């Protein structure tokens, strides 16, 4: 989860990383009450590295220009996002610009410090030659930051001020459980003063629960990886959004992906794929497997593009016996809805149309022995039975067959 620039700079200022005087602008008229001196730079608060290129960053010297520029930035969508806030910041004279970052390296299982004496438009293809790094092998101590600054080729006072900034970045990284802290660029003035001109902070979603203030920030932010509002909270690998007719529910990320592959490789088109094994990491209230399954079925029922729901559960599930119960309840409530619909439309249409998707349920493991029997016996609103299988390939084939069949179409 990425913070916006103005939030990043608040955090930087609090931990002691030098930032320019700035002011948050919620509305162009806020510029009339500007507390910082002109010339200023106005920046669109969206998460996109490209914002400067597309006009989201403007230098202005007077209030009149500032208000006009602010109006236009507020109306300029960047990667589809309109900013809710702008940041007004003092202009800064730089002689050099550096890149600094602290990031968690999942291969060495350690945080690494990164630094480069070029910034902004780093040519990432050749970055491995210019980018320097230090692995924080043992507990952090400021000497790791000095190691980085020296590797970057810095000396004397500049070496020390840059390593001081890296030290503060690391402190922020640990204190707030981050995945990434980045300063890009770190401006160096002709007198050797350093200043974080722009920065990125990415919060680790797993740790949000133990930082009460962050949970509030998280709630306010839309997950940028998914667009659907109903399921965006399932986070990370727990949701894969595609645009076919076959929704996939599984208990395990690998299993969901394997199922998705099978559907594609057999000529089918997967739609939303959900992993129900665990609660989402950003979920604040505790959930059970049962409640996640209920929620998922409910959401999928409202999505008219889904024709078939392929459920693939295997192995031990704490509430294994409840699977048939949830599916039973789901079918029943759909029946009621269907009857209501029929009543409303006064039986006007003869075609057996309704909002109920077809279900293919693959259950493997002795825990599901009774569930398999119970589910197979359920009666659906479309009078079709639910397909229950033990073999995965078979379940996939059946789901594809049903998705291609045009006999029962949802509308």
């Amino acid at each position, binding site marked *: 989860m990425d913070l916006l620039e103005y939030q990043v700079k608040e955090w930087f200022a609090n931990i002691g990383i030098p930032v320019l005087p700035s002011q948050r602008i919620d509305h162009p008229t806020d510029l009339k009450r500007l507390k910082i001196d002109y010339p200023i730079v106005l920046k669109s608060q969206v998460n996109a590295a490209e914002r400067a290129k597309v006009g989201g960053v403007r230098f202005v010297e007077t209030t009149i220009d500032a208000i006009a520029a602010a109006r236009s930035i507020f109306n300029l969508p960047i990667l589809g996002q309109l900013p809710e806030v702008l940041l007004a910041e003092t202009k800064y004279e730089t002689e050099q610009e550096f890149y600094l970052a602290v990031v968690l*390296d999942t291969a060495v299982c350690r945080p*690494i410090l990164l630094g480069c004496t070029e910034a902004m438009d780093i040519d990432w293809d050749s*970055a491995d030659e210019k980018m320097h790094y230090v692995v924080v092998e043992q507990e952090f101590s400021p000497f790791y930051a000095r190691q980085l600054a020296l590797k970057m080729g810095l000396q004397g006072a500049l070496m020390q001020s840059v390593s001081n900034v890296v030290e503060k970045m690391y402190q922020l990284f640990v204190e707030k459980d981050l995945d990434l802290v980045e300063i890009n660029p770190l401006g160096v003035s002709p007198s050797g003063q350093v200043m974080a001109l722009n920065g990125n902070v990415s919060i680790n979603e797993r740790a949000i629960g133990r930082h009460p203030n962050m949970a509030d920030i998280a709630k306010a932010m839309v997950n940028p990886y998914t667009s659907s509002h109903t399921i965006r909270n399932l986070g990370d690998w727990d949701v894969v959004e595609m645009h076919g007719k076959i929704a996939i529910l599984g208990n395990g990320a*690998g299993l969901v992906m394997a199922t998705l*592959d099978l559907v594609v490789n057999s000529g089918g088109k997967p739609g939303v794929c959900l992993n129900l094994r665990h609660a989402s990491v950003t979920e604040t209230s505790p959930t*059970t497997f049962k409640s996640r399954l209920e929620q998922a079925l409910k959401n999928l029922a409202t999505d008219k593009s889904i024709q078939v729901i392929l459920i693939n559960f295997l192995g031990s599930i704490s509430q294994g016996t409840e699977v048939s119960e949830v599916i039973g309840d789901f079918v029943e409530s759909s029946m009621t809805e269907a009857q209501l619909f029929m009543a409303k439309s006064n039986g006007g249409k003869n075609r057996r149309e309704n909002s109920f998707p077809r279900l293919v349920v693959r259950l*493997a*493991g002795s825990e599901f022995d009774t569930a398999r029997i119970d589910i197979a016996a359920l009666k659906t609103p479309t009078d079709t039975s639910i397909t229950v299988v033990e073999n995965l390939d078979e379940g996939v084939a059946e789901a594809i067959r049903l998705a291609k069949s045009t006999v029962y179409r949802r509308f």
Partner: protein
Amino acid sequence: MNLTPYSKVLIQGFSEYITANHVAQMKANGTNLVAGVNPGSGGQQMYSLPVFDLVEEVVEKFGVIDTTIICVHPYQVLDAALEALESDIRQIIIISPGVPPLDMVQLLRKAEAKETLIVGPNSPGIIIPGKILLGTQPSEFYTAGSVGILSRSTTLTYEIARELTDAGLGQSMSVSIGSDAIVGSSFLQWLQILDEDEATKTIVLVGQPGGDREEAAARYIAEAIDKPVVAYIAGTQAPSARHWRQTGTLAAVIGRDPDFGTAKNKLAAFSFARVPVAERPSQIPELVKKALR
């Protein structure tokens, strides 16, 4: 490594990640489960296990503990594991998913200094069919045999065991290192163990998108593994929608390889290492049989 049925095993924490069924299965599979630790529940019985408040109380009563299986709330994993380390437990299996990565970094620094094996987090553990079960792998899908399974998935691992068993191919050992971004033991460590394990004749390696563990494994297989290896990668058809840079590796940050972490990259690595890759789980038994010929 001590994976004999005599080794003493402890469970720390009784959360949603472990059920009575899991405990019963472990016992049924020969695991010498001596006790549970659940702070505040000392003196009680849970799933027919005597429960203590502290690990040191268990050690005092039963002597050295070889393995602990940690199932506490993700935010308490670090504490539970440090407590186990203080009591000189040398094998720690973490079932709980969602451990904050920086907690894992702290734990791994300590565990490396104490030469302690950490499996997980977010791992169903280890099974040696018919001998020992350390974790939550469902033993019903396994039979004793000579195929070693190595993965970082949960249910997908069982799916593959099930396919092998159905095809008459038993398993020597199955390990999932866990699907979190930061995990203790690596594919490399386990490839080496399976390579040296006498009961193992073939190795099945199961991967999925994210990170570059599969790529590293492929390189290691080409260099150092003598036994035949068959791979399977899930998610080859899934769109890659993740910003790898932020939870990736140095390679991802510096190189910014657009394919980093993708299934495509992993398939290429195995192909380069001349490791046969199954297209679907049900194809694995066939490739294993071919490899053994």
